[in-house]
């Protein structure tokens, strides 16, 4: 009871819970699940963009894209480390990903069909991720909060690069403009779904709020995202594919149309355009690398800790 009181006091004072502190089992489990899902999203999220590394249309864009995807691998590393401070192991978490027992963000189950999709992901998907993640920089669990500070900084850099890349297309040839518009048309609704189900249907929210893991409701964050994107789309010279999108003076927010939650559920259930492809490729990379990891372990066992 004394331990629990300390924990509650830490939360109440908006201070950080650290790895060695006592914490409730549910708090620990929720965090592991959330951080793992977040880490998995980073590494699965490498795929749709890496799909264009070999085909980037200029060397500058190729360099930007490679650096970005590399950052995502780095984010995966920070996040698995944060999860490890809670007693989970990376191998165990990867195993859960590969066997489908843990999820990653559904947004990565959509395909990147043209080069403009890379820009649209940067602008919309990273944009949505930032809005989801900025509040996590104040998450009650220290290692997660600190990882998020670093991640958010990089993500907002990626988001600006995505915007800039889309702008170049929008202001380019008619074909490029059409490519940009098409990408935005395809990524807009899936991006809105990134904030999760409507508050009314959200299962974990109340407890996560109490634990200060979560700070805002899904719908609040989604509204913030819409409000930010509308003027940015105008600046891009692109339209958002929602005829019901309009400013509501009363609410002081943009109204937007109904989201197709059936699609969301389908993708969540594994029937999105790329669910199978993403997991298969991830498993294949992991399986193909097994002999390499084994060799590294065998070498380390013979020669002691890594020389580097």
């Amino acid at each position, binding site marked *: 009871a004394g331990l629990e009181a300390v924990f509650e006091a830490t939360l109440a004072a908006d201070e950080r819970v650290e790895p060695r502190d006592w914490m409730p089992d549910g708090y620990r489990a929720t965090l592991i699940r959330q951080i793992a899902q977040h880490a998995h999203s980073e590494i699965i999220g490498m795929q749709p963009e890496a799909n264009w590394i070999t085909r980037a*249309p200029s060397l500058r864009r190729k360099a930007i894209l490679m650096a970005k995807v590399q950052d995502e691998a780095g984010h995966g590393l920070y996040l698995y480390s944060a999860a490890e401070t809670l007693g989970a192991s990376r191998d165990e978490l990867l195993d859960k990903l590969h066997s489908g027992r843990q999820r990653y963000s559904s947004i990565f189950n959509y395909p990147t069909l043209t080069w403009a999709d890379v820009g649209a992901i940067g602008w919309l998907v990273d944009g949505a991720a930032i809005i989801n993640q900025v509040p996590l920089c104040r998450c009650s669990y220290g290692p997660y909060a600190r990882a998020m500070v670093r991640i958010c900084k990089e993500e907002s850099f990626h988001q600006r690069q995505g915007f800039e890349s889309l702008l170049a297309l929008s202001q380019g040839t008619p074909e490029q403009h059409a490519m940009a518009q098409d990408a935005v048309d395809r990524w807009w609704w899936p991006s809105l779904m990134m904030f999760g189900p409507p508050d009314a249907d959200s299962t974990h929210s109340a407890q996560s709020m109490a634990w200060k893991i979560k700070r805002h409701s899904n719908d609040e964050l989604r509204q913030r995202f819409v409000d930010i994107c509308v003027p940015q789309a105008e600046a891009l010279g692109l339209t958002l594919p929602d005829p019901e999108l309009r400013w509501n003076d009363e609410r002081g927010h943009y109204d937007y149309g109904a989201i197709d939650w059936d699609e969301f559920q389908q993708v969540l259930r594994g029937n999105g355009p790329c669910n199978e492809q993403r997991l298969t490729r991830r498993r294949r990379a992991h399986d193909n690398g097994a002999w390499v990891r084994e060799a590294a372990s065998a*070498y380390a066992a013979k020669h002691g800790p890594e020389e580097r």
Partner: protein
Amino acid sequence: PAEHLHAALALGDDALVLAQRLGEWTGNAPTLEEDVALTNIGLDLLGQARHLLGLVGDEDELAFHRDEREFRNLQLVEQPNGDFAHTIARQLYFSCAQSLVHRELAASDSPLAGLAGKTVHEVAYHRDHAVQWTLRLGDGTEESRTRMQRALDALWRYTGELFDPVPGLPVDLPALRAPWLRDVTEVVERATLRLPSGPDRAAWAAGGGRDGVHTEAFGRLLAEMQHLPRSHPGARW
């Protein structure tokens, strides 16, 4: 006077093509750390390529609008990634040579000396990365040992070209073969492997890459790399 541009093109193409191959690994590496490392090496090489091609002309024009026979890169760097051991063998052969070349180039009075001076450290890191993995794979498990040896053997035939003279490059390339061989031999033996002894170049078109003669895999690499800019002539990205 501008003979160094010929060398810039050759070295720039090496860096570009190897960066393209390494970019294929991103997201497919054996560990997350290697995703980071291989992409990082690819990025360094891409940086070198942009600098060098930029001296010769417009970097994108050169990268995306030349045909296969106009590329001057070594056949070694265009070889497909194969398994991780093949990639490491390619990196070992190439980065050991590049270390020697950049060190001499940095000390020369070539207009390329500045770049070489700046890249000495990154190239040393690339070499070290390849060396560490050669050791781990060679002296790891039975399987990794077999794979690493097979990779060293398969790529050996592309190493002779590394030391063919490049006009405009004030480096005595043939003279670097001996120190390269010492360096690589030392690593390979430390890894409990043996260096291949067969011919180190294909019979036909020896030194082919520098003359624009490539291998069949290179055409497909270019098709993938160039398709988008070729499809939108005049567009800016």
